[in-house]
């Protein structure tokens, strides 16, 4: 018995507002984007004829095609860095920190920046990266370089540095959750059977946390693929990834071209998520053996 009857009409009425809201604001607009990307003709209206000219025009430009691969490459690199770093941090927090007080304190120290504005945190990197920035001043003070390195602000390196600080906790969070759910007996059993600590990690702990790793990687992937704000803040106008192109076309009122880029971006993300789901399934097959 519960405060709501199973399959009662009331449950439909309660779910309806949220469902309609999500359909109207998320599903319909995204479907609309796909439709708009095929619009031909001169007028921007629902009666436009359908063509694939918009896509043909996009792929005819090698700069744009290169941008797709550049975006994917940048994202994969960032996934690798945040994945390794995030796993180390998650493992240390859950397995190595014994005192509950320290653990809470460290957790808070990691979580609090997450609740503040990503935009402000990206901007906070600007005074670090410039020619006279903190990093260059430190390097010159230490005598590592004679003249300032210009490779930080308005560069791919700077964007990567900021994004690592923004997104590593997304990779670490699900791993922390999975590590916490491993029963201590499993590790104890392996250790009783004289497995070395490395074997325990590699054969017991890591496979059990793999779903967490994959979910974290998906989160980082989706966020970095669509993160144009950090790129715009730190890359200036000199660097662009795929989502910045959406913005560029949108601002110059080329809505059909912007839709094409948006649809391609969406396709890249879908492919990424599908691949990730495959990886989790492969793990499950391996575990049953």
């Amino acid at each position, binding site marked *: 018995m519960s405060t709501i009857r199973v399959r009662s009409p009331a449950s439909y009425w309660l779910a309806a507002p949220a469902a309609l809201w999500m359909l109207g604001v998320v599903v319909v607009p995204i479907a609309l984007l796909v439709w708009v990307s095929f619009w031909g003709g001169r007028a921007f209206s629902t009666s436009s004829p359908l063509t694939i000219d918009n896509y043909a025009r996009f792929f005819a430009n090698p700069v744009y095609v290169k941008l797709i691969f550049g975006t994917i490459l940048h994202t994969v690199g960032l996934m690798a860095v945040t994945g390794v770093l995030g796993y180390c*941090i998650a493992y240390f927090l859950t397995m190595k920190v014994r005192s509950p007080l320290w653990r809470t304190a460290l957790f808070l120290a990691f979580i609090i920046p997450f609740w503040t504005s990503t935009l402000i945190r990206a901007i906070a990197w600007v*005074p670090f990266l410039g020619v006279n920035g903190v990093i260059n001043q430190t390097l010159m003070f230490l005598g590592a370089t004679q003249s300032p390195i210009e490779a930080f602000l308005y560069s791919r390196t700077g964007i990567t540095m900021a994004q690592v600080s923004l997104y590593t906790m997304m990779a670490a969070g699900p791993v922390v959750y999975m590590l916490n759910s491993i029963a201590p007996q499993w590790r104890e059993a392996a250790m009783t059977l004289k497995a070395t600590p490395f074997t325990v990690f590699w054969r017991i702990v890591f496979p059990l946390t793999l779903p967490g790793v994959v979910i974290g990687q998906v989160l980082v992937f989706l966020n970095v693929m669509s993160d144009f704000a950090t790129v715009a803040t730190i890359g200036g106008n000199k660097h662009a990834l795929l989502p910045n192109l959406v913005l560029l076309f*949108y601002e110059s009122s080329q809505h059909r071209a912007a839709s094409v880029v948006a649809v391609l971006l969406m396709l890249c993300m879908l492919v990424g998520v599908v691949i990730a789901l495959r990886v989790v399934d492969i793990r499950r097959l391996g575990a049953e053996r």
Partner: protein
Amino acid sequence: MIGWRFRLSLTSWILGTVTVLFLAYQWLPIFTLGLLSFSGPTGGTTFPMNGTSLHWYQEVWRATVMNDFKPPLLRSSLLALACSATTIVLSIMAAQAMRGQFRGNGWFFYLMLLGIMAPGILVGFGFAIMMRLMDVELSWDTTTFLVQVSWTLPFGFLTMLAVFNRFDRKVEEAALTLGASRVTAFRRITLPLVLPGVIGAGLFGFSLSYDEYARSMFTTGPDATLPLAVMAQLDRQLTPEIYAVGTTTTLFSLIAITIFTFAFWAMRRSTNLERS
């Protein structure tokens, strides 16, 4: 051959060092931002600070029409409160509906997940195109509100779902057995028990809306919200004034989190006391 005990403590040290270094990496920019916002009137956007002063905060306060951050701050706060309230109501309803196991609840769950997965730039852009085709004027208090709730609602929904899965159903059942109507049992028993979760949902609603940039950018008309105003100022000119605004809004969100957390803690404490 080095003993495994030694290697174990070596890994601890290496992992600990990585963790501490990353903490510094994450926090140093934020602290620097705060520090530089107090630099002197001739201070630039990096060190040296050329003295300490409240000059840049005064600039923010005295600002003219172009770089006035006070109206955007007010808009963002009101919007965040509205999103928070809407998220609370809708996510309680949706999570309660999930308990009714209505037909198609699997699809409903995925629909909500889609709201989290779909990137802001696609949702914002698609919604802006839709509004254009429907000839609807973009404005921060209508279109931006609609889009932002689609972002905050799934987080509140997942929070409420987790809370409903965990709370003690026997209490609810007892009330129903004693003859309370379903509505009364929900209002008098269930709702007070899940109140900490409600506060969590509200916090998600507030903070996600307050910081949202991508979705607002496409759907806000001429009157900008705070993140949009900050970005516009960054495009025009980079001065420590931005750092002052950044420090202020970061403090503002930290205070909001503290209030929510404290309320959460107090609620949990009071429900625990009543139970024992």
